[in-house]
């Protein structure tokens, strides 16, 4: 045996029906044995679910938390540093001065010479590829 109001019992017990509709279901419930039995069944089931022991998986929980936190963090390359303009200007000036000083000290060190490194002739034969600083050599050889 079934009743048309049975399917409205669960939403009514969860508070999901409109007030007028809920009053209608309650009025019907007072006189319908089938719906009363269904309501008892729903309540029993709820109690069983509540009383069932639940133990959460700790590692799964931690991983879930990490995923949540990670999604909220900004990647390193997208982070921004904010500096006041005078501080930033001073830093750039200091960097430029350091580079200039290091180049100047290399060039003007007393007694230092700037050895000619690899050099390329303009076009054609590049003599530098042969020149390792050796002394010219001449000798005879049998053909």
């Amino acid at each position: 045996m079934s009743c048309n109001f049975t399917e409205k019992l669960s939403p009514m017990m969860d508070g999901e029906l409109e007030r007028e509709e809920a009053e209608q279901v309650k009025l019907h419930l007072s006189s319908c044995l089938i719906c009363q039995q269904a309501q008892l069944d729903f309540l029993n089931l709820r109690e069983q679910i509540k009383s069932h022991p639940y133990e959460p998986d700790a590692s799964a929980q931690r991983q879930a938390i990490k995923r949540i936190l990670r999604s909220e963090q900004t990647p390193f390359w997208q982070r921004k540093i904010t500096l006041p303009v005078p501080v930033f200007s001073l830093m750039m000036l200091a960097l430029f001065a350091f580079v200039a000083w290091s180049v100047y000290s290399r060039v003007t060190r007393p007694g230092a010479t700037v050895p000619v490194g690899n050099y390329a002739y303009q076009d054609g034969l590049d003599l530098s590829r042969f020149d390792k600083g050796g002394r010219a050599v001449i000798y005879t050889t049998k053909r």
Partner: protein
Amino acid sequence: MNTRAKLILILLALVSSMMSGSRLRSTKASPVASDLKRMQFQIATIREHAGERTIISSSVIEGPPGTDFDIDIQGERFKMNAKFLTDFDQSNVLAIRAKLQTRRLYGYSPQGLPLYEEDEQSPALRLGLDEDIILLPFGRGSGEDRLKIEITPAMTEEPVYSPSGELRPLTINILKISPDGIVNIRASKIPHHYEAEARLLEDGREIARASANLLFEEAQELLLRSDTQAIAVKLKINEFIRSRPSDQVAINFDIHRADKSGNTREPVGLNWSGVARLGADINYDLSERYAKKYELRFNIKIAKGEIVD
């Protein structure tokens, strides 16, 4: 015909044969010189890289024995001049006096001035016609890349003199030009062998004489001994100057006073020089160094058998 007429005829025949013989003989070349053949030098600049050889430039010089040549390498920061004085003697041996000069840009001074590394070598080589001369401008090197100049001498079948008796001109055939003209070749033929005579005059009167054979750019000592003294003259011919009507030579010499045995040298004049016309006298006054009027007189000629243009 009587005997007298016969004798006159024989005499005339002899005279005419002598005169015709002299006309038949070449006016430019002696019979011995006409047998001389031209020499050839093949000069190849080669790049050796990872076992492979690539010819960068190639030239052939052809001329009479005694042809000299220069090889120049000119790069942006490296320069080499290699001069070769060649002499070919009767025993088929090629005597070469080489002079190598290199100049390499090393760097810059603290004042920004360029600093160069220079080297000079003067090796003497003797080789047969079955040998080559190898010149490594940058040394033997330890890397894979090496520049090498190979000089291959050979005798040709072409005579030094043309049928008309003229000396055949020297030729340089460039078979492959080096990129950007980095390698340059020059050749020339100048006399290498000379006969030098030195005389010492006292108040215009000859009191000592000495002579010697001189090789171009090689110093030779002449010892002039008189009754009272002896002087040693070390003479060198530095340069041959082609000039008409008569060629000239630049000379350089030192004079030392010696005892009668030729020892105990005392310098009288060092590093004196001059330009002398071949076959003409050139005088040097030594009066300042002696109480009497003394003169040193040189006369330099090209040695017999030397090939002259």
